[in-house]
């Protein structure tokens, strides 16, 4: 499994490098292989299909323009792509922040704490390792970190959703992040 995954990662890296020299075929191939993953991430954050489509479009136009700055020594292609897609989704969410705060329905959504497919043979070693470290956190803190990551919510929004004071949410998340770093960097 991890051999397949490694080959896939290397192929994506290679595609991104080719896109850096304006190879349109490589661009089409990269889109074919990664757009469903990226769209899933955008859609989960934005919860609106047409907004997610716009962000996906922005993401890939940026990929085309910035591929030449992709440095495989610094990040894998998929990390680079996911980072772009998440950053653009979060920026979009922040633009709408005031509307969201005015809309109690959006804040009332239940925290995202779906069972994770950690046992899935298909997740990478990196994911399994991260999952192992997340499992060491207190359940509420773990669920806050996951909610934050998948929805792109601010501290304020998270505190409201989880019905805890802002200070509590901040300390949960910060403590979790430090714990995760210690666990992952071992």
């Amino acid at each position, binding site marked *: 499994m991890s051999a397949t995954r490694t080959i896939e990662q290397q192929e994506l890296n290679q595609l991104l490098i080719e896109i850096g020299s304006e190879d*349109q075929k490589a*661009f*089409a191939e990269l*889109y074919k292989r990664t*757009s*469903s*993953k990226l*769209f*899933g*991430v955008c*859609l*989960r954050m934005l919860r609106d299909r*047409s907004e997610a*489509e*716009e962000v*996906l*479009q*922005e993401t*890939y*136009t940026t990929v*085309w*323009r910035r591929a030449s700055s992709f440095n495989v020594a*610094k*990040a894998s292609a*998929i*990390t680079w792509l*996911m*980072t772009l897609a*998440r*950053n653009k989704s*979060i*920026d979009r969410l*922040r633009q709408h*922040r005031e509307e969201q705060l005015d809309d109690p329905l959006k804040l009332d959504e239940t925290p995202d704490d779906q069972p*994770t497919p950690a046992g899935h043979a*298909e*997740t*990478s070693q*990196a*994911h399994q*390792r*991260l999952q192992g470290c997340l499992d060491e956190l207190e359940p509420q803190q773990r669920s806050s*970190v*996951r909610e*934050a*990551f*998948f929805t*792109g*919510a*601010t*501290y*304020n929004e*998270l505190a409201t959703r989880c019905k805890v004071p802002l200070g509590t949410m901040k300390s949960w*998340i*910060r403590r979790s*992040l*430090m714990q*995760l*770093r210690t666990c*992952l960097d071992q």
Partner: protein
Amino acid sequence: MNTPADDNNHLRYAEYVLGVLDADARAAVAHEVQTTEAAATAVALWQQRLMPLTEEVVEVEPAAYVWARIHHALQLNAPARGRPRQGLWNNLPLWHWLGIGASAAAIALLVVVTVPRTAPPAPTSTANPSYMAATIRQDNGVIGWTATMDPKNARMVVVPASPTAFASGRAPELWLIPPGGKPISVGMITPDQPTTLALDPALVAQLGPKAALAVSVEPIGGSPTGQPTGPVIAKGAISGVPEASAHPRKVASTGIGSGATTAMLNAPDTPGMQQKTATETDRRS
């Protein structure tokens, strides 16, 4: 080993990657990442740590038109949908020539050039025109662009008719405006050259005599919002033949070469075109 200041910085970078910072704090970290190597490295490390979580997200296939939009926005070559069609339809200098210097003589010449003498009359349907055109005029009445649409092959050629200057970083974006609907981006067009655009099926479905085309001024990559953000500089209704200008309305298959793309101009039926209709009928009989 870590000082409290280190920890604070690390926290900000971690919070940035996790996505919990508000707009201002996010912008501050994003700026640091651009300007300092240490911040860039720290953020990259957090991305490596946290990004594997995205593996849990259910994949969702985006609609096909998203890829078409990306292609248009970047002005890449037409998406590879089978072999590129050869023939007059792809002959951009020809469209350019038609768009700028169109005249009855030019059309007549084109008919002479392209109608094979032995070809049988091509079946055409007047009820369902296979081609549509639009003259896209600026507010002062000057024709900015002409557009010819080929719904069957899902493509459109947009030809500049008069030079239009754009500020640096700005480019024209073409929009389709369905009756009573919001503009739909057709794609970015080249200011000074004919542009061939592939049309996604949702867009083709909206083409018709009640729809219009418009050109707005947008950032190079296209409107960031999906709706026009800059001034609309030219507009035009989609119709048969655009007024008295001799723009081809329908191009019918002659039955030879590569089907519909080996084109001849066929029986336009607006008053201004009567003469050429007669000419063509003569040629056919």
